[in-house]
């Protein structure tokens, strides 16, 4: 059990910084998918390791929250452990690994398999908030493209993939159109998770600390993964089931088990996998 450190303000950030973040979040919710610039602070964890998500969580978390932190879908990956421990030290709030029990879920690279509910808040760690950045390096220019809803560049890129490979060659951080207006990055989640964003009952908040941008998808908001009529959007499927729980509908991690190249496929969502196994043991 990690103890609360009273030398720091609740949530580490000072109240002025929290207010700045909170005002930004309210505008982000009012303009779904639009990237709000904010005065990102230097956190005691490195940029690129979740400082945006950490600042958002720090600005919204309260004593009665129950926090879950995942990285790659798992609660026990080192960076998730580290961030959870950070919040335990600076807030003392309860933490959980169970998706259903959490009021606040900070994540890197996954959305849990267990369906989210109204009232839950997801906080995504975002390395690059600008979906057009690899196509246009200049921030001045990408701002203009968003202002004019000029997303032809992205359609051309996806279509070039199809011409070259017969498929869209983007498997994660797959761009989405939010509320029919703003092109947004869903963060580097596999495209498998994109459908979970569409009309979710939970509030989705996205924080990019190094790039100093935050954005939001309110509950029950249309989130469309870009596609073409002759090439509809499709998610990853595996010819395997999870080797631990037998699930056939969750995202699987591939694990190399020996030098001969044998592989095993297991759920990336460690809480979901555990819950499935518990259920099976109960029935057995």
């Amino acid at each position, binding site marked *: 059990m990690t103890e609360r450190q009273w030398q720091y*303000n*609740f949530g580490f950030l000072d*109240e*002025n910084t*929290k*207010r*700045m973040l*909170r*005002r*930004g*979040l*309210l*505008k*982000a*919710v*009012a*303009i*779904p998918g*639009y990237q*709000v*610039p904010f005065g990102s602070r230097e956190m005691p964890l490195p940029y690129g390791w979740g400082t945006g998500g950490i600042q958002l969580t720090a*600005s*919204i*978390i*309260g*004593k009665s929250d129950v926090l879950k932190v995942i990285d790659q879908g798992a609660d026990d990956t080192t960076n998730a452990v580290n961030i959870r421990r950070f919040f335990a030290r600076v807030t003392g709030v309860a933490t959980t690994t169970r998706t259903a029990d959490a009021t606040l879920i900070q994540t890197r690279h996954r959305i849990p398999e267990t369906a989210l509910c*109204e009232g839950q808040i997801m906080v995504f760690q975002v390395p690059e908030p600008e979906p057009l950045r690899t196509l246009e390096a200049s921030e001045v220019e990408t*701002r*203009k493209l*968003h*202002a*004019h809803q000029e997303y032809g560049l992205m359609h051309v890129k996806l279509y070039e993939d199809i011409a070259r490979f017969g498929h869209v060659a983007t498997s994660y951080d797959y761009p989405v159109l939010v*509320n029919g*207006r*703003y092109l947004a990055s869903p963060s580097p989640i596999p495209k498998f998770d994109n459908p979970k964003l569409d*009309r979710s*009952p939970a*509030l989705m908040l996205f924080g990019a600390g190094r790039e100093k941008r935050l954005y*939001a998808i*309110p*509950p*029950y*908001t*249309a989130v469309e993964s870009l596609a073409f009529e002759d090439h509809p959007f499709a998610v990853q499927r595996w010819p395997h089931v999870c080797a631990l729980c037998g699930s056939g509908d969750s995202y699987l991690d591939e694990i190399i088990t020996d030098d001969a190249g044998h592989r095993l496929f297991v759920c990336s969502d460690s809480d979901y996998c555990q819950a499935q196994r518990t259920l099976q043991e109960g029935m057995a």
Partner: protein
Amino acid sequence: MLHPAFKHPVDDAQQTFRSLLDALAQPLRLSALPCLPPALPGLSRGSAALLYTLIDRDVSLWLPSLPDDTLASLRFHTGMNLAANPAEADFLLLTAGTPLPPLSTLKAGSDAYPDRSATLLIEIEAFNQDQVIGSGPGIPHTRRFGADGLPGDFWHQWQANHARFPLGVDAILIADDRIAGLPRTTRIQEG
């Protein structure tokens, strides 16, 4: 004379903010304010809570004419920076009976930065469910809504505000200890 603000500034501001976030994320659904500071002369408790949560010296606030002790208390607790006129304000508080400045004259943001826009905090008498039907992000299908004490052409002005999306203003309606959010994304049908 200075009036006290939140009893527990850190926790109370956090809980008030979560009500606000809920209110804007689920427009036209009522959210309770869990921590109410003592009312200030001329202001409801709910308005005071929102000001203590949102305002500091980094933003500009437009206020109607209010008693001196209210202004002195707000200045002391928030460091507020008063806007000379509504068109320059980041936040506007409209107490009951204050005429509504035309929404189209307020800060609506720019094409590149639509977030640089005004937020209205509007005191009303009471909520009801029989003026309008709202839809848009945060609303599963449609939501019935109404507010007693809004200026007569408010909803009409709101439709024009919504039509400017992504530019526009956002509003929070306050009836004592309950609030409802009205982001620019909310589409309103009268009737």
